[in-house]
């Protein structure tokens, strides 16, 4: 089964001489349980691609299916609800809520959806990610690596169809970065979780099942 399908994605900014083609006709798909890395240089369109896949921004042209849903058909609020049920995000700058503790940050998407929290599953995630003893800490008291692990836990919590990770190791030192990546890979295997990760580091990309290369908004290769 395909978790994600992108068809002829285009995102243009400006017009005339100033026209910038951030994405220029990109198509690919991701199978369920696959761990895909998107690599490219700075300005190649990686982040834009991820935002389009997650419905955080609107496309100039093209379509994105997550599982069987064409997300371009959804209204803003429908998209938000779809996002919290089907997509997990991991950002470079962690983006944890500073006033909520670790546990609250993790379960928030589930609670926003009005669902009951699967405590066992959350506990499992916490233990898997080495956060069990940090459950009630505030984000400000955690190291960068710990914060990113909380972000991954939050992305996993709602059992989404896909996790989109935007340079998840960008703010981490190389040792911590490898730890975090290892965890991502491990969770992908353990829970058969589809993950699309953006990185500019080829070494990190090697940990993925598959690498997609972008250059100037175009797909260079898919291996």
């Amino acid at each position, binding site marked *: 089964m395909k978790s994600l399908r992108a068809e002829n994605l285009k995102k243009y900014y400006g017009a005339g001489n100033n026209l910038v083609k951030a994405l220029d006709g990109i198509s690919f798909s991701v199978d369920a349980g696959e761990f895909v890395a998107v690599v490219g240089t700075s300005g190649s369109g990686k982040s834009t691609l991820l935002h389009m896949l997650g419905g*955080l921004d609107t496309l100039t042209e093209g379509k994105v299916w997550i599982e069987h849903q064409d997300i371009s058909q959804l209204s803003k609020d429908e998209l*938000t*609800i779809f996002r919290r049920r089907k997509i997990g995000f991991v950002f470079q700058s962690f*983006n944890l*809520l500073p006033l909520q503790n670790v546990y609250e940050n993790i379960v*928030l998407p589930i609670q*926003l959806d009005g669902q009951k929290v699967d405590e066992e599953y959350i506990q499992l995630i916490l233990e898997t990610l080495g956060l069990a003893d940090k459950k*009630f800490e*505030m984000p*400000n008291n955690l190291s960068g690596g710990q914060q990113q692990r909380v972000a991954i836990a939050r992305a996993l919590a709602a059992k989404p169809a896909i996790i989109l990770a935007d340079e998840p190791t960008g703010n981490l030192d190389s040792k911590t970065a490898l730890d975090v990546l290892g965890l991502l890979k491990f969770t992908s295997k353990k829970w058969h979780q589809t993950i699309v990760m953006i990185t500019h580091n080829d070494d990190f990309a090697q940990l993925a099942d598959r690498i997609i290369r972008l250059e100037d908004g175009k797909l260079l290769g898919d291996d």
Partner: protein
Amino acid sequence: MLKVNNRKVIKRLARTQMKQQPLKNRLLVLAVALATMMLVAVFSIGINYYTVLNQRNLSMYGSDYNGMLTGPTEEQINVVKEMKKVKTVGMAVGSVTVAEYEGIAVGTSLVWADENHWQEQLQPVFIHLVGSYPQKKEEVMLSEKALKKMGVTQPEVGMVLPMSLAYYDGLRDEEMILSGYFNDYSGKNRGFISKTFYQQSGIKSDDLDRSRLYINFSTPFISEQEEAEMEESLKLNKYQHFFADTEMGDMLFKVAVSVIAIAGVIMISGYLLIYNIVYISLRKEVLYFGLLKTIGTTSRQIREIVFRQIILLSMIGIPAGLILGAGISNYLIPKLVVTMIPGVVSFRGEFQPVIYVLAGFFSLLTIFISVAKPAKSIAQMSPVEAVKQEDMGVKQSNKSKTGSSIRGMAWRNVFRNKKQAILVFLSLFIGMTSFTVVSSIIKNNNAKKILEALEVSDMELLNRSSGDDNQVQVFSKDFISQIESIKGVKAVHPVSALNIDITKPHEQFSAYLKPEFEMAYGVDYEKEGRQMMIDRPENFFGTLVGLDSQQFQQMKKKFQLTISEKEFHEGRVGVIARTLEHNYQGLKALENQRIDYRFENRLLEINIDYVTKPFELFDSIQYNGFFPEIYVSNQYLDRLTGSETFVDHLVIDYQQAYDQETDLEILSMIKENKHIDHESKIERYENMKESENQLLIMGTVIAFVLALLGLLNYINVLSTSIFSRSKDLAVLSSIGMTTQQIKKMLLHEGMIYAGISLLFSVIVGNSLSYLIFSLTNVYEITYEAPLTMLLLLYFFAAWICLFLPNLVYRFIHRDSVVDQLRNN
């Protein structure tokens, strides 16, 4: 150390940075201008308000003085003039009374006022004055009230008024010429005559009963001890009376305390507004200053950059505020007053330079204090810290296992930055509390309440022939039931009067007679008075005044009487009324004593239950007998006379106070009857209303300005806080919080702000209002909260609190989530 010339660079840095932030600059100039403007407006309105309030109070008393001496001798006048604290003395002598005009009984006392009394003590309290003070013997000046009583509704200077004047030795008909007329809030029936007239009238300037020396002190602070010393130095004779207002200073002090308290509140609000804007805008620039530091700018230089910018902005903001404030207080408000109140031709918005100096100084001071702290903390921050600076989260761990409800998140958001939360609460609280205080001052100083406190009845109809030899019974039972049948009339209370002979005056009234003869006739009771009573017994009568049951009940309650209504109706007990200082002690001895009297050859007796204190009872019949009035019941008088007793006046209560229609109906009913005079509360109120409206407008403006300051503070702090949280909101949106849910959370935040500040404002604001009210309550009015105004405010404040967060969010929300995340 060598001085490095880096002024130019600093100047350029300050200017470049300013140029890049036009929005912040405009906001700051606006805040400074607004705060300055409000200070100017509030100060000058406050001063005007106080002046008008004071003027009204003076007018109600009829002249402006704070000390008085009855029947002063030449010597005493000189002593008073020599007193250290005396500023002005003015003399007034009541020379004659207008008894009748074209067959209408009038009873207007005509007074000669010397130049000081006229110019310093009387003129300031007149609302308007046409013509001039009488110069020739035949000239007279009358109050509009007096003219109305004579039936002259359209007076003209120079008109001839043939009147019957009552001199101390008898009546004389004379033709007088109206030299002028005036109106004041006292609504007194009075007039003035020339010095020539007074000199020829034969009244001496030391006449105990008719002559008064009015004194103005140079200071309002006269202690009771000083009053006693003055009294001693005057060597008063037994019946002279000296009075100095020893409470004025105390009252002024209380008023000053209230004014300072209000001014203080305004200052704090202004300070908060400027401080908030500066603090928030500087915090946003931390990164920029951090960068400057990393390239070697010193703390001192950074502070200089900050101050330079602020001074530049103040140089625009403060003058703009001063000009705006001057415009509002000297142009807009006077114009508003003139347009809204038809009778007022001009309104004096007094120009007080000190207000502008003060307001400007305060704004500048506020700005410096507001800037000093954030500037210092930024200057002292290490460069690394500054570059990394972000809106700090919470460090303390939180044991919540239940996760976050939207309500809980809202609560935490409100208190995320405690200092900011306190500022918001404080701004709202101060704004609303000040509004509460000011609007309660307006509410409780209103003319209606004052009239209520003075126990002025809705309408009184007076029989002009009362006290004459040929009294005409105009208020017959028929007439009364006609009045009662008018729709808006609740009750009519006839007050009847019956003259009686006191049969054992020398035994029963011995303590009363001596001082009374000295005061009324200036003779010794033993030597001449006793003989006078024997020679002309018709001049020495007493009066029984009849009340109805309801009036009796009111009196019983007021004086806490123990007598029963039955005893009262049977004429077995009575109450002595309308006593004066000089005779009170003599009459007080009559309590629980029997008085014998005669009516039409019948010998009767009555027990006195209570003697009212001087001025305890304002309302009585229109004429005086030699003996004091004794209050009994109408029923008893009717039984005594065997018919309808003469009714002196009617006290009419309306279903609804100030019922114009009922008033007009009664007036049209008595229009043709020249024996009936009237005193309408509505007319008196209309008279006071002019100043009332001035007070209302100015007070309302102050109240709104104060509330606005608080709300502006709230709007400013809250919108900045939401803008600074836009990243969090974007994160929430990215992990799946719908717009609906975010709005709900913001609504909850608004509810928390509204709830807490309203709670405090309601409690503290109303207690404080009551406290200030009690400190300044001159008329002993009962306190009343300005409910409508308060509800409006609470509603408005709650509305802003609830909807502002969402309104601000709408602005942020226009960007896509990615843009919001990226912008941060």
